[in-house]
Every structure is written in structure tokens, then in C-alpha cells.
């Protein structure tokens, strides 16, 4: 009986001490690198926005954007859509990496990516497309 009590109390102590460690504060998102990426994405959004609305591009499950229906892009802009998407994705990849690194945990990048993936979709306008397990879904 005594031993059982010892075991239980030791387990409780280890659980408590580990949750102590996890009491983390907010994530730092104001490093120069993150701000630079953010500004670049903000500037690009004006160009991307009509393509979200037309369904030409959509939000992917891995926190990026992808061309969904190139025929929805006006012919004269069609050549530029791929490079627009590629530029946006390289910013997004860098953003996830920089947030993780800026907080001293480069290994968090994937979790940050999936957090963003969910939030991009939640904040997307109605009518925009996002990817789910079954394919493209119109919000």
C-alpha cells in the first residue's frame, strides 16, 4: 500500500512538473524576417484576391495555395497565375519556417503550417475554394 502511494505521488509530481514546462507565452511574430514576408504577401493579395473569388485558385490542406481551374483566369493573365502562386507559396513556406525559428523551435514548422491551413480556410470569404480530403470545396 505504501509503495502504491509512493508510485502515485511520484507520477503526479512528474505530470505537474511537465505541465509547468509547457506554460508557454504568446508566439513571437514581429521579427524582421516575419514582417518582411508579411508585407510581401499583403502586397500580393490584391493580385490574388480576384482569383480566389473566381475559383481559379484555392487554399490547400498544407497551408498553401494551388491553381484549381486555370480556365477561370482571364486569358491575358493566365500565363502569370503560376508564378503568382509559386511566389505566394514560397512566402508561405518561409513564413511558417520563420515563425518556428523565430520562437526557437524550428521543429514546430509543420504544426504551425497546419494551424495556418485551418485558419486560412476559416477566414476565407464565402465562395472561395479550399481543399479537403474529398477534393475542392466551395466555402
Amino acid at each position, binding site marked *: 500500500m505504501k509503495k502504491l502511494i509512493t508510485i502515485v505521488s511520484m507520477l503526479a509530481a512528474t505530470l505537474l512538473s511537465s505541465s509547468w514546462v509547457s506554460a508557454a507565452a*504568446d*508566439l513571437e511574430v514581429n521579427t524582421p524576417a516575419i514582417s518582411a514576408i508579411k508585407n510581401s504577401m*499583403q502586397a500580393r493579395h490584391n493580385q490574388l484576391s480576384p482569383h480566389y473569388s473566381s*475559383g481559379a485558385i484555392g487554399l490547400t490542406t498544407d497551408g498553401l495555395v494551388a491553381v484549381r*481551374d486555370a480556365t477561370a483566369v482571364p486569358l491575358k493573365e493566365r500565363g502569370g497565375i503560376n508564378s503568382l502562386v509559386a511566389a505566394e507559396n514560397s512566402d508561405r513556406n518561409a513564413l511558417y519556417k520563420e515563425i518556428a525559428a523565430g520562437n526557437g523551435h524550428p521543429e514546430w514548422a509543420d*504544426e504551425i503550417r497546419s494551424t*495556418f491551413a485551418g485558419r486560412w480556410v476559416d477566414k476565407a470569404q*464565402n*465562395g472561395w475554394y479550399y481543399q479537403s480530403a474529398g477534393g475542392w470545396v466551395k466555402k
Partner: protein
Amino acid sequence: MKKIGIIGVLVLLIPACVTINIYFPAAAAEKAADKIIDEVWQLKPGEEPPAKPSGSKPADAPAR
């Protein structure tokens, strides 16, 4: 003596498992994501999507 060894192993392993699960600050990450998305998409903080019908062109008829 053997039991002490087992307890010792448990004491080391259990917090390790718990730490892996809870160490990523999911709530803080979500807050950070919201802040950045609001800025990139120029939404007002906490704003949910405006119910904006997608412009003038009926673009959602698939081509096939």
C-alpha cells in the same frame, strides 16, 4: 530493487510523452496565425468572412 528501477523508468518516460503532446502551444499558434492572416488579407481583427457574393461573373460552372 527491481521495482525502483521500473518506477525510475516510468518517472522518466511519462513526462517525456506528455511533453511531446502538449509542448506545442496550439492556442498561441492560432492567435499568431489569426493576427498574421488579418494583416495579410487586411481584415479587421476577429472579422469573420464578409458574406460577399463572388462578383459579377458566374464562375462556378465547371468546364466539363
